[in-house]
């Protein structure tokens, strides 16, 4: 099927395009970009006047919970949530049951997402077998079976020697290592950020230095071995500074942050709100400011959601007992567009961080509207106003701190491989 998207503001940082143009998709690929293109008879036309037409958004950090934890989310509901949020590709973390540490599990995810999913799913294998933290997974086989990175997300690799060897080994294979950077001894039994709010609420705190130390270790290991590393969900002022300095020294480090780290502080925990409980925890105002500055100056390369669905029974409990994590796929775009309206980044920078850079970091071969590229395209209405309502979310889980909140901006069409898989 051929598709002509007319009159939109085409924003493609990969080609330095930002102009009112038309986009023709043919046989699932970008065929042509130009002005005043005429629709031929066999073409479906989408009028994108007033909309942004951008390379499909990519979220390199989601938990699809499939296989094994389908009561929280599965590949069908998770990818439905993704396309509703404007994402054409997601990379799913390996803490499934069983863990993505072998080709059968990776293959299952790829096959199921191709046959039943709504968007591209790129699995991320584990750094260590079963996320055990004590020996490396078969990264070669993982890469050959379609994994685009390795990570023990949720569980830092505590053993520094193993982490260093994993970086070296992965670099030899050509697969990116994504680090969940936290020093576990300092995390302890903490349940929120350590600060005035934790003091007032009487909750055990996780000091920011737990993330800073681990981030410093990762950049030093990458520097020493000369290998690339990607730091997941950066949340602290210290981590932003450490990564900025490492980049300035030429260390091959990239990083991401999540919308909650540039929109919320640990004040959101007040009332013992378990939908404000995640790991790393929500931090303080100066961290939020530093994360925004990191986004602005390019220290932070990507925005990823850390979409972490949990069943109501896992969140509707006492605070300490509640699982860590929030869903994010359906709210990431409006929250991130807030960075544009508040002048933190330009819309071009934002599309880089939500599409071009994520593709580059994990070599996904997406993130562009270049002629001949796979036609993953997102149409965004930056003015669309809506309210986050649990029953209207596509995700199986409803653990969002933004329930009942007004949002501005949404995907109005999500096109994957030339097919409109979501229309609003």
């Amino acid at each position, binding site marked *: 099927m051929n598709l002509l998207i007319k009159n939109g503001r085409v924003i493609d940082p990969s080609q330095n395009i930002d102009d009112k143009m038309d986009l023709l998709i043919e046989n699932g690929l970008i065929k042509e970009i130009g002005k005043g293109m005429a629709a031929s008879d066999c073409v479906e036309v989408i009028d994108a006047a007033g909309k942004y037409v951008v390379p499909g958004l990519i979220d390199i950090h989601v938990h699809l919970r499939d296989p094994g934890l389908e009561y929280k989310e599965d590949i069908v509901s998770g990818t439905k949530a993704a396309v509703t949020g404007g994402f054409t590709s997601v990379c799913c973390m390996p803490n499934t049951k069983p863990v993505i540490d072998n080709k059968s599990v990776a293959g299952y995810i790829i096959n199921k997402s191709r046959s039943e999913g709504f968007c591209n799913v790129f699995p991320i294998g584990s750094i260590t077998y079963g996320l055990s933290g004590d020996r490396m997974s078969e990264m070669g086989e993982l890469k050959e079976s379609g994994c685009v990175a390795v990570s023990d997300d949720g569980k830092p690799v505590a053993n520094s020697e193993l982490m260093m060897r994993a970086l070296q080994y992965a670099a030899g294979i050509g697969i990116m290592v994504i680090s969940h950077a936290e020093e576990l001894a300092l995390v302890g039994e903490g349940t929120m950020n*350590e*600060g*005035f709010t*934790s*003091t*007032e*609420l*009487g*909750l*055990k*705190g996780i000091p920011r230095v737990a993330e800073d130390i681990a981030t410093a270790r990762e950049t030093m290991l990458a520097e020493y071995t000369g290998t690339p590393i990607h730091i997941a969900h950066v949340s602290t002022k210290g981590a932003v500074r450490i990564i900025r300095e490492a980049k300035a020294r030429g260390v091959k480090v990239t990083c991401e942050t999540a919308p909650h780290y540039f929109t919320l502080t640990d004040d959101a925990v007040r*009332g*013992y709100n378990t939908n404000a409980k995640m790991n790393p925890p929500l931090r303080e105002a100066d961290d939020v400011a530093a994360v925004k500055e990191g986004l602005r100056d390019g220290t932070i390369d990507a925005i990823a959601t850390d979409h972490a669905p949990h069943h109501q*029974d896992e969140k*509707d*409990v*006492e*605070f*300490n*007992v509640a699982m860590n994590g929030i869903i994010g796929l359906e709210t990431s775009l409006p929250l991130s567009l807030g960075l544009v309206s508040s002048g933190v980044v330009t819309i071009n920078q934002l599309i880089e961080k939500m599409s071009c850079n994520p593709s580059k970091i994990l070599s996904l071969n997406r993130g562009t509207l270049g002629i001949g590229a796979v036609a993953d395209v997102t149409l965004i209405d930056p003015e669309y106003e809506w309210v986050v309502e649990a029953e209207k979310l596509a995700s199986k889980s409803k653990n969002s701190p933004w329930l009942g909140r007004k949002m501005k901006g949404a995907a109005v069409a999500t096109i994957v491989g030339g097919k409109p898989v979501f229309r609003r």
Partner: protein
Amino acid sequence: MAEFKHKHIIALRDLSKDDIEMLLSSAESLREINSRDIKKVPTLRGKTIINLFYEASTRTRTSFEIAGKRLSADTVNITTSSSSATKGETLSDTALNLLAMKPDIIVMRHSVSGSHYYLADKVNCSIINAGDGAHEHPSQGLLDLLTMKDKFGRLDGLKVAIVGDITHSRVARSNIQGLTKMGSSVFLAGPPTMMPPGVERLGNVTVCSSMKEAIQDADVVMMLRIQQERQGKTLMPNAREYSRYFGLNPENLKLAKPNAMVMHPGPINRGVEMSSSTVDGDQSWILKQVENGVAVRMSMLYHVCGGEIE
């Protein structure tokens, strides 16, 4: 007198100065019952109170039970060590099952801070907090205030030193809230490993660099229990060294005002946070605290039931 408007008593932070005065004033009226021959009035006859204790407690549970019984309420005790995290049913299910038996008040102690707010959202009876994690212990805070009032006849302008593990202390937090509201000032001392960040912003609080500085000219010296189990291996070297710098003894007690009172929420580790001579000495009000605990809890039960004194 104004009406007590709260259905639950979960934290002194949630109460106004008037609320606290009302609770203390009723406690002063009610405590006369405790010295009668027949220690019982029909005030809460027909009311059912469940004491739901997820953490071990002797003093607080007994005190709440006696308070309920002296007001003629039917009291039931449930003590359980299993939390929803480990085994058994969830707190929510337990509460809903208890609720099906139509209690009027659930008095709960729980190891997780904030769990009473969670519970209050689920049930239609009153909730009284008998201690939640490191958050608050409002009945302890109130009985401490009542005891100070007994001695000084007022609760404003007092200098109160609190010494010990502030980070893990719900007693300290409730006292900070209560004393600040009543117009007194709190001086904290403890090893820096036991001093939570931003604690001085909780109220009229000064963090002192030493125990001496905190108790200098204090009207009240309140010592907190130190527990090797809780403070683990990383917050202090051992009880011996703790005692050297943060233990109360007759010598350093001289730094406080000559008529200063000594308090402790119990249970006491004699020879660790307090020498026996200070526990049993003339300035100790520790047993008066326990006595006042019954009166304060009677007042709390009475007010959340919204009744008039017959």
